[in-house]
């Protein structure tokens, strides 16, 4: 039965070859644009998220509290207006207190790796050149488990920090800017007024110029001494086996340790919402292409319905039901959608392959970048599904009209 309806539908379309080809072209272009643009945007989105997840901690515990501690009197009278005079702020060395206990607790949690970091600003000097850098005190073996920095080492080794406490690992861009090379001694002055000389034992290249030109890694103890913050750290970075669980895990950790604990999702909320908005805009634009294609299908099927009133009447007289007629015209939409999908996906694959060959340099990156294309089955299913939906929706209205044709009215006028 379906075969018969599809046969009639196909013959109707073949009889209007030019119109059918135009509407088919609309679907082909719609599917190919939808597929290639969607795959490109989704690819870049996944790439951004992958970089976020891979290159930064999944969770960061900071030496800060989400809600600042109130004065005792303010806690006692929460509704009152309080004015305190001559309050002397407590002088203390900032940092996460009792961090070894926190690290012990974190390391007992399955699927979680943690490493302590003390970060601070410093001034690097070499051969008359000065440059502000971010100094990161780490325990190399621990830090390597929560970071991808090892992957980006181009010279030397991060692990050497453990055997050479006076060593420093810097970005290759910083080395280039300050004319440094492996083995050179670099003077580093902290904001606490301490000065130390470090030997360059490694170079890394992440491709991000802000990191490559502005960050350096030193043994934790040396940084604690340089920043005058003994036995203190100000960040604990955490890597999870399941990055998607970061938000829930961060909330759980914060409840336990009380220090502000930020997941990668929270840290990237602005970016994630920007990506979501970008997706909405993209789907609206490529959806509009398919909408235009749908109008083409609507046009051709409406024309067939108008021209085929007599055929509809005779088919009804022959014993075809109204719903057969409806299905017959829906089959026309399905045929255009299906054939359009086949060619559209083919053209889309060509466009995707072409887009992959485009290379460019983005601001903030020292590397040549390529467009990342998402070749997942989901992209193909989405493009094909949306195209079929558009085609069937476009066919539905004329199909309904065809089903409502009263054969007697047509036959009376036609004989």
């Amino acid at each position, binding site marked *: *039965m379906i075969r*018969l309806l599809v046969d009639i539908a196909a013959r109707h379309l073949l009889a209007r070859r030019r119109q059918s080809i135009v509407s088919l072209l609309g679907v082909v272009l719609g599917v190919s644009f939808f597929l290639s643009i969607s795959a490109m945007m989704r690819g870049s989105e996944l790439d951004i998220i992958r970089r976020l997840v891979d290159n930064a901690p999944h969770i960061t515990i900071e030496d800060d509290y989400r809600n600042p501690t109130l004065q005792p009197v303010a806690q006692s009278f929460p509704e009152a207006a309080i004015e305190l005079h001559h309050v002397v702020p407590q002088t203390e060395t900032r940092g996460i207190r009792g961090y070894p206990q926190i690290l012990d607790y974190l390391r007992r949690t399955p699927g979680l790796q943690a490493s302590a970091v003390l970060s601070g600003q410093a001034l690097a000097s070499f051969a008359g050149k000065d440059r502000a850098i971010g100094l990161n005190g780490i325990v190399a073996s621990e830090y390597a488990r929560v970071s991808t920095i090892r992957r980006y080492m181009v010279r030397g080794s991060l692990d050497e920090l453990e055997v050479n406490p006076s060593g420093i690992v810097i970005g290759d861009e910083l080395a280039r800017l300050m004319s440094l090379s492996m083995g050179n001694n670099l003077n580093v002055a902290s904001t606490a007024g301490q000065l130390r000389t470090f030997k360059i034992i490694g170079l890394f290249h992440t491709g991000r110029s802000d990191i490559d030109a502005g960050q350096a890694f030193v043994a934790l103890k040396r940084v604690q001494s340089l920043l005058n913050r003994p036995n203190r750290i100000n960040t604990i970075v955490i890597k999870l086996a399941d990055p998607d669980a970061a938000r829930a895990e961060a909330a759980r950790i914060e409840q336990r340790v009380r220090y502000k604990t930020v997941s990668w999702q929270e840290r990237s909320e602005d970016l994630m919402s920007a990506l979501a908005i970008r997706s909405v805009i993209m789907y609206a634009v490529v959806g509009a292409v398919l909408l235009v294609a749908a109008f083409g299908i609507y046009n051709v099927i409406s024309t067939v319905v108008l021209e085929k009133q007599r055929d509809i009447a*005779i088919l009804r*007289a*022959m*014993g*075809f*039901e109204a719903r057969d007629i409806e299905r017959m015209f829906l089959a026309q939409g399905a045929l255009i959608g299906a054939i359009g999908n086949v060619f559209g996906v083919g053209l889309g694959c060509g466009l995707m392959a072409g887009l992959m060959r485009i290379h460019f340099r983005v601001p903030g990156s020292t590397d040549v970048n390529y467009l990342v294309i998402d070749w997942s089955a989901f992209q193909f299913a989405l493009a094909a599904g949306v195209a079929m939906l558009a085609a069937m929706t476009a066919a539905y209205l004329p199909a309904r009209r065809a089903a409502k044709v009263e054969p*007697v009215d047509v*036959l009376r006028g036609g004989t």
Partner: protein
Amino acid sequence: MTAEVIRLEHVTRRLQGEVPVTLVDDASLRIDGGECVAISGPSGSGKSSLLYLMGLLDLPTAGRVWLRGADTAGYGEAERSGARLRMIGFVFQSHFLLPEFSACENVMLPMRRLGIHDETTIRARACALLGGLGLEDQCDKRPRQLSGGQSQRVAIARALANDPMLVLADEPTGNLDSVASRNVQRTVLALAHEQGRAVAVVTHDADFAAQADRRIHIVDGRIQP
């Protein structure tokens, strides 16, 4: 004569509107198998409307239509379509062949709709039907390649595809020349007299009507006594 095929009891068809129009007024009629009934009357008298009511294409405003002893009043759209598919064959003044299909494929359509999927079987039956009407050489031709008489005979073959017991022909010779007209007349009469079907044929042709077993004259929707 054999058993009753169709019976109309006091059937009326009225179009509602600002000015109601009565197409068929209190028509009662019975046609048995093997009987050919000619329906004549002036233009607009309700001949075709009567035929559409007999063919379950239209619903009576009042009265009942019995098909093979079954009251069709309670039939839904699907049952009426099913009855048309299995028991009724229509032939119209214009052949109404589907132009995208060959003569043979046009004849195969009702069989395919009936659910007979064996292509060889239905093609053979379609060719046999066309051969029986002298069109054995025209099977693969498109309707535009056929003459008016040939197209009308293809339409008759299509009407017979599912071996209906009732054939309703609405001025089947109206658009044909005299030779083609006589051929079609002979074919239609043979459906009743040789094949035992019940045939109702609307015609203005007095010679054709004279060859029928019974003549019915309609004026203003009423069957004249």
